[in-house]
């Protein structure tokens, strides 16, 4: 093919729209109004609306610098101490699955990177198998499966009428899926809705997945952030493992250890035998090598240092309870303000019932636009607000904005 001299080989490339989530922060930064509020990306803020680096992280980094460790390549599967710590955090230190060597763990680039390795593994070893993702779900899930070449479809999840879980719809869609499908489940603190199944509902979901020969693929990005307890937030995953079901789990330490930019997470496969675990791990490595060779060491060492030191681990738990606690407090205040200001008697209690960093307000696209255009409140267009970016001081203002958008904009 001869090309005219002087014409770019990329002339036909069109401008992509900004990322729906990360683009919100860009728009927020560009806004010059004093009243502006960023409820876009799920990054924790203090009451002063400042980013937070956890004390235990600072201590770990200081320790790491003082010990003068080298910067050699990690093995493809990542830092061994991190992999051990992360599997134990997820499944419990006394987990039989771990003791029996039935857990394959590979350090990944936070949640996204770990999901991508899992997706690439599905594409290679379960060709044609479909992944079911919740409607709605984190916006990047579909991109990950698209780029990995894995077909996907949705299962019903959010019921706008109740602003709650459409459990019957969810079960029906999982049942209808071809046997051997992968079901992407949020371990806790569903993103974007904040709506989690109850323990009884989790049991039924496990029953159905087992019956249909599906496999659960858990996305665990908020362990410790939902309830404040690391163990409680892992209940859903541990239930499946206790039942003897094989599962995939992607983990992230972006939120619960505040390590957003260090990109630290893991992909785990809990399988029936240690032989299988060894083989699965070898193939996960084979997918990582041509993607980035081996993962970054810094974040992994921070996690390993925090979890490996009893005092730091306790301090971490306290800091996490503090973060989860602040979000619960803010939820309560927002609910109180909404209920007081909205004279129509609308039930705003979903704000209290929803779990984790996010609240699905039920605002539509036009209403969400009104939030940013008129009120300088930045959120994603699906109606999601990040409570982690809300202070008590701003709850009243936010309540006004939500009420105005809900009632005065169609």
């Amino acid at each position: 093919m001869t090309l005219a001299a002087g014409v770019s080989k990329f002339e036909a490339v069109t401008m992509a729209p900004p990322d729906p989530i990360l683009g919100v922060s860009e728009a927020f930064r560009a806004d010059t109004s004093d009243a502006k509020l960023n409820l876009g990306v799920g990054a924790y803020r203090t009451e002063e609306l400042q980013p937070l680096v956890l004390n235990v992280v600072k201590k770990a980094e200081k320790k790491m610098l003082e010990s003068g460790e080298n910067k050699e390549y990690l093995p493809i599967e990542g830092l061994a101490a991190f992999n051990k710590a992360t599997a134990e955090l997820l499944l419990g230190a006394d987990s039989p699955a771990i003791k029996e060597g039935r857990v394959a763990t590979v350090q990944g680039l936070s949640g996204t990177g770990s999901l991508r390795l899992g997706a690439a593994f599905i594409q290679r070893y379960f060709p044609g198998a479909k992944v079911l993702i919740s409607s709605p779900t984190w916006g990047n899930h579909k991109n990950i499966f698209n780029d990995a070449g894995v077909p996907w479809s949705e299962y019903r999840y959010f019921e706008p009428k109740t602003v709650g879980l459409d459990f019957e719809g969810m079960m029906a869609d999982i049942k209808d899926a071809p046997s051997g499908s992968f079901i992407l489940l949020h371990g806790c603190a569903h993103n974007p809705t904040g709506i989690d199944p109850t323990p009884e509902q989790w049991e039924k979901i496990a029953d159905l997945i087992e019956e249909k020969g599906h496999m659960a693929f858990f996305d665990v990005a908020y362990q410790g952030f939902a309830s404040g307890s690391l163990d409680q937030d892992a209940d859903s995953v541990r239930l499946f493992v206790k039942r003897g079901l094989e599962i995939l789990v992607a983990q992230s330490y972006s939120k619960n250890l505040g390590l957003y930019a260090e990109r630290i997470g893991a992909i785990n496969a809990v399988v029936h035998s240690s032989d299988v675990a060894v083989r699965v791990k070898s193939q996960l490595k084979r997918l990582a090598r041509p993607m980035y060779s081996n993962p970054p060491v810094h974040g992994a060492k921070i996690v390993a240092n925090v979890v490996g030191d009893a005092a730091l681990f306790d301090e971490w738990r306290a800091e996490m309870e503090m973060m989860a606690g602040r979000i619960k407090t803010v939820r309560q205040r927002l609910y109180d303000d909404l209920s007081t200001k909205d004279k129509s008697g609308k039930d705003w209690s979903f704000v209290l019932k929803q779990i984790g960093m996010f609240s699905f307000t039920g605002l539509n696209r036009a209403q969400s636009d009104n939030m940013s255009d008129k009120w300088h409140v930045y959120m994603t267009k699906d109606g999601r607000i990040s409570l982690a970016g809300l202070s008590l001081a701003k709850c009243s203002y936010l309540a006004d904005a939500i009420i105005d958008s809900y009632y005065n904009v169609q």
Partner: protein
Amino acid sequence: MSSRPGGKNPNPSVRKRHEVTDLFGETPHRRSTTNGRHGHGHGRLPYSSQKQSKRRHFSSTEGQSADSDRKATRRLASENMKSVHHRRIASLARHFRMEEGGSIAFSPTSATASSFAHVKQAPEDAILGVTVAYNKDPSPVKVNLGVGAYRTEEGKPLVLNVVRKAEEQLLADRARNKEYLGITGIPQFNKLSAELILGRDSPAIAQGRVITAQCLSGTGSLRVGGEFLATHYSGPKVIYVPSPTWGNHLKIFPLAGLETRTYRYYNPKTRGLDYEGMIEDLRAAPNGAVVLLHACAHNPTGVDLTQEEWEGLRKVIRNDKQQLPFFDSAYQGFASGSLDTDAFAVRRFVNDGGETFIAQSYAKNMGLYGERVGALSIVVRDPSVAARVESQLKLVIRPMYSSPPTYGAAIVSTILSNPALYDEWKVELKAMADRIISMRHQLFDALKARKTPGDWTHILNQIGMFTFTGLNKQQVEYMTKEYHIYMTMDGRISMAGLSSRTVPQLADAIHSAVVKFSS
């Protein structure tokens, strides 16, 4: 088919992706068509730029013919179905176990067939596997000349002084936090990286024609660049890599979606460059193909082009074939000791106004191996294209890892933006390069002293971290077994792993191997 070293694909037009129908009559998802509804989800993606679907050249049975590829895909699909049946039966059987005496009892956790039973053990990575084998060896005199990681004269890994200073600065900086970087990473890092490779006064930078994205070291930059090309390049989706090349190139590009072919490069007879073969192969390649070039210190051979040869190559690529050069720059400063000298080839190409891709790594020249710091730079003809290309580049990165890791890039940024630290870095870099050059001389002298048969001047002529010894597999295995020398099977040794103390042992091993197994 994907990489067949030295071979030419009989069908020069881009290979079609295999159609695979899954067991339920649905075709598995392909990436990115403007009208495609992906899955059954929210409807079409609003941001795919071209109607071309990305080609996936992965085959689980790599290196085989198209026919056996289709068979393999059908076999996998059939195995998947068996796996589904297994799962159903296993799911039921899981609840029972056989008791002694033949009765069946209820047992929810009895071991049963895994859904992953069909997953085979992957072989150890050829290069990283050398270190795995080295670690297993109990011998106190073992030497690791496998992976290209710098070692001091004492055989220890090195963290540069200037890196420690930067780390201390970062730790002390109260204004720093760990918030997500943007998808393309730290802007200052990107600017400084582009200036490092292209020169601070680069016209391309001044004209706004350079897009730079922070990526995960060299590998990540190559992969992101490859995926971008597979989706957006208007030329043929095929990349030519030198023969031999770094083994991971042959895995990265096919998975990225580019058909991967080779051009002649190394001449075993001369242990130098096969310039004529290279030019001939690139002339025979399609117009507009992508051509991977090692910017300096070719890995694994250490054989580089002279300035005249670079100019000859450039004319063919730019004027005759309108091919797209994709530079892999992993050793800037490490080859000659000078950052500018080692950037000669990249700058020569970029300064002619043509479009260029560049993958940079800071693993070796800043010793930041495990931090995974690198950058992908795309130089386009036209500033108006640059913004569009950057926006689409973000769509490649976001579903891979969202945004890059901050720590290593912050270190690089700190050093490159501070004149005192920059100068200190250059001194430390030159010291590393000089130590490697002195190892070359010591090894050459040691072989000469032993009167080892053969011509060993290539040890002096080859450039950078590695020497392509010319030793064969049999000789290498012998050296590992008898002398505990660990190196890759292609005869490559990392000079960075040698010291004055271990040179004699290596020289003995080579001498012994050459005498015992004359090639």
